[in-house]
């Protein structure tokens, strides 16, 4: 009996750490609608700075003072980030802030290694909480008891802050209805800045408080960020109480789950999230999101098919790309193939995200399923390459059909998180089912048949498929189905009122996008000759998001450019420097600031501006110039 009590308390202590970080994220999202990917980075910097301060300052005062000072210092960094970076992009398309914070995260991961060195750092224990308390023969670390008390205390402070202060009232109002706060004449800028600072403070405090029990190292951020997102979503976005309950739920399920299924931790939070979202689409304590009255930025350029000139230009670009094998070496061709494959992957997500308004955070699942499909068919069934290429993507298609059915019942961030949960579930199956998938050692020896084996042939194959896919998806954008899909994105109310079954349309789009991603994954398996769980992992899903956002989410085919730029740059940087994350992150942040509509979105805007300022009657410029792909 005592054991179960202690296990429960241990779970509560884990929950407290999780809650601190999650509450900050929840507040930030609730008010600013920023999906703050950098929250984990702030958590990590909090731990690093706290390590330095607590090592330098002696005594109990030095320790606790160091913890709080570290959190304050990071909050200040947060304020600077908000004012210098995020403020510029609040009016950018939804999720663009994700790109900015993703770039920051990349930079921070390299910066902490530069500043604090590569070794794991182990800080000192908290003065006064070094030992354990005996509970019927079981030891409970006194620091755990401290955390167990701290969690509800922070919850209480936040509650008072939100219920009893004018600032808190504004925050709650803004969480429910942003437009209203703006209408009340509140200085929204400072509200957002202060909210961001509080959220970052909580993240950094959460990080700093790990000093006595964890090692400080440069991958701490990734360890926590996804889990924290999951907790926030399970609890309901913007709900602090929800975050607390969700943190306790997840931590206790884990604490007791490992007694029965010792391997459960790897997937538990995602299982819980999937179940919660299917049963309660807005999380445990969340409310349905009030639809934004006006999607910012989405009104500028109606989409048009390419004019004949543009078609010629696209064809010319394609012809140039097709001549690459005439003068480039094998390495360049392999890189070209990889880029072509990522173009397929990116346009598939773009179709779902831009045309359907459904931003999937787990799109790699279908890419990876396509790759595993190939591996199963080629290695186990021994089928020839052509047959594999035709059948392999079907696994992506089936996965998308099953998961998409549930996912399209939701929208917005909840949709994103449910797709993430599904992707993680698929990933963990690939990771755990060693006898079939080879686990993390993957499936090797999936090389192309001789007709496609040479780098030039494979390049032409990849380029050809990428072209076909891009054209097919473009045709679909301008097909009756594409119009219907855009209709469901723009107004569910109106779509329903004109006889459109939005869920079926979106489900179809999901399956199309998943199948297309599967085609990319199938080619990828042959390019690399092997398949690993990485192919379905979060980082690949994030890559796809970044490519779409970089190209421009409001454009028809911006993802093509986004994929080419991101992938080429990524491969080149990784090859040239160990600090590729720092440079790539810096580049992304720069793009975000300079091109808040993405690369192609910006080019379109420039073209449009030029069109508007051009003198009337000029026959050449009077024609619509559409720089969209």
């Amino acid at each position, binding site marked *: 009996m005592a054991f179960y009590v202690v296990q429960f308390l241990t779970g509560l202590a884990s929950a407290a750490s999780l809650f601190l970080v999650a509450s900050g994220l929840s507040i930030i999202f609730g008010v600013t609608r920023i999906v703050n990917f950098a929250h984990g980075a702030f958590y990590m910097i909090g731990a690093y700075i706290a390590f330095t301060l607590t090592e330098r300052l002696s005594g109990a005062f030095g320790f606790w003072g160091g913890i709080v000072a570290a959190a304050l210092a990071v909050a200040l960094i947060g304020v600077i980030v908000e004012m210098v970076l995020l403020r510029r992009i609040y009016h950018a398309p939804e999720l663009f802030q994700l790109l900015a914070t993703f770039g920051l995260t990349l930079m921070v991961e390299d910066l902490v290694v530069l500043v604090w060195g590569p070794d794991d750092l182990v800080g000192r224990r908290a003065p006064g909480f070094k030992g354990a308390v005996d509970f019927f023969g079981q030891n409970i670390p006194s620091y755990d008891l401290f955390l167990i008390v701290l969690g509800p205390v922070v919850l209480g402070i936040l509650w008072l802050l939100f219920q009893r202060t004018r600032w808190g009232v504004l925050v709650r109002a803004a969480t429910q209805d942003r437009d209203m706060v703006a209408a009340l004449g509140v200085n929204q800028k400072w509200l957002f800045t202060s909210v961001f600072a509080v959220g970052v403070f909580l993240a950094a405090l959460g990080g700093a408080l790990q000093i006595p029990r964890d090692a400080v190292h440069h991958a701490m951020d990734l360890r926590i960020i996804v889990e924290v997102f999951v907790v926030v979503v399970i609890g309901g976005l913007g709900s602090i109480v929800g975050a607390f309950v969700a943190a306790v739920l997840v931590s206790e399920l884990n604490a007791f789950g490992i007694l029965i299924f010792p391997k459960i931790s790897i997937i538990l939070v995602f299982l819980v999230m999937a179940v919660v979202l299917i049963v309660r689409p807005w999380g445990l304590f969340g409310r349905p999101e009030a639809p934004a009255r006006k999607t910012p930025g989405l009104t500028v350029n109606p989409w048009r098919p390419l004019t004949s000139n543009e078609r010629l230009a696209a064809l010319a670009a394609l012809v140039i790309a097709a001549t690459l094998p005439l003068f480039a070496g094998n390495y360049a061709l392999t890189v070209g193939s990889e880029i072509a494959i990522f173009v397929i992957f990116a346009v598939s997500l773009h179709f779902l995200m831009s045309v359907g308004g459904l931003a999937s955070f787990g799109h790699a699942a279908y890419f990876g399923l396509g790759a595993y499909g190939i591996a199963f068919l080629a290695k186990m069934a021994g089928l020839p390459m052509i047959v594999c290429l035709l059948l392999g993507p079907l696994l992506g298609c089936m996965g998308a059909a099953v998961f998409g059915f549930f996912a399209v019942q939701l929208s917005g961030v909840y949709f994103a998180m449910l797709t993430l949960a599904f992707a993680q579930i698929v990933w963990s199956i690939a990771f755990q089912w060693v006898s079939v998938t080879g686990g993390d050692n993957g499936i090797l020896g999936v090389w192309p048949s001789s007709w496609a084996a040479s780098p030039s042939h494979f390049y032409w194959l990849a380029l050809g498929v990428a072209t076909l896919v891009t054209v097919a998806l473009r045709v679909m954008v301008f097909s009756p189905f594409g119009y219907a899909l855009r*209709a469901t994105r723009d107004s569910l109310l109106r779509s329903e009122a004109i006889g459109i079954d939005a869920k079926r349309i979106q489900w179809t789009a999901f399956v199309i996008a998943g199948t297309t991603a599967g085609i990319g994954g199938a080619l990828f398996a042959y390019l690399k000759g092997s398949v690993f769980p990485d192919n379905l992992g979060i980082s690949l899903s994030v890559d796809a998001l970044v490519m779409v956002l970089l190209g421009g989410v409001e454009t028809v085919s911006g993802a093509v450019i986004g994929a080419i730029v991101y992938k080429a740059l990524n491969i080149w940087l990784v090859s040239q420097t160990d600090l590729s994350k720092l440079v790539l992150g810096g580049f992304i942040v720069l793009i975000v600031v300079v091109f808040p509509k993405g690369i192609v979105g910006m080019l379109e805007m420039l073209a449009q501006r030029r069109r508007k300022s051009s003198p009337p009657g000029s026959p050449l410029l009077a024609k619509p110039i559409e720089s969209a792909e």
Partner: protein
Amino acid sequence: MSVAPPLLAVDGLTKSYGGIHAVRGVSFSLRAGEILALIGPNGAGKSTCFDMLNGQNKPDSGHVRLLGEEVTAKKPREIWRLGVGRTFQITATFATMTVRENVQVALISHQKQLFNLFGSAPIFDRGEAGRLLELVGMGGYADRPCGELAYGDLKRLELAVALANQPKLLLMDEPTAGMAPRERVDLMRLTAQIAREKSIGVLFTEHDMDVVFEHADRIIVLNRGTLIAEGSPAEVRGNPQVQAVYLGEGLVYDARHREGASS
């Protein structure tokens, strides 16, 4: 009572929220080509009533029949397929698409081409789209992005969209809200003309009594969820109960902004 079923027959419609009756036992009917106004002060249950007619809200009891067919439990999109067009109090259009594309989507849906993946939507029934836009006086705006339109134009676009499936019945929730007086008259005249020409029944709610009394063939009045009067504009105008309700609320001519409680 005629032998053929009326276009729209509403019978004993009731809805309550947490013990409060929003709509209680409302019954009325509507003939083809008739323009019927549903009026009442704020919180009278107009929007609730309206939402139950087109399937956005399910009644606790009562029936809605369209040409004799039960549509009470149907979804909005199914009711639309039976020939009911709808416009919203706050316009709902596809903001990133052009005016013509907005109409084309409705035409695509009407012709059951929603899952056509490889056709060309930009040339989809341009002729009919153009005719509908001309009909509501939006012909010159066809290529404009919908997001750039003035509010009155959006209302007219909604009308064109609502007409795309050759409806037998139009449901218009405050069709003139937020418009300038001139525009109101124009829009209602246009609606009335189309309704008569095509023999479409129109049910609309409205706060602007000028609009109501000028354009409605018949008026029904809701107060606190129950029907208190029904008749021609002249009859309703003279009804003392109606006068009491409106005078009591003091809201006869200026209650045109929000109807909060019932939606």
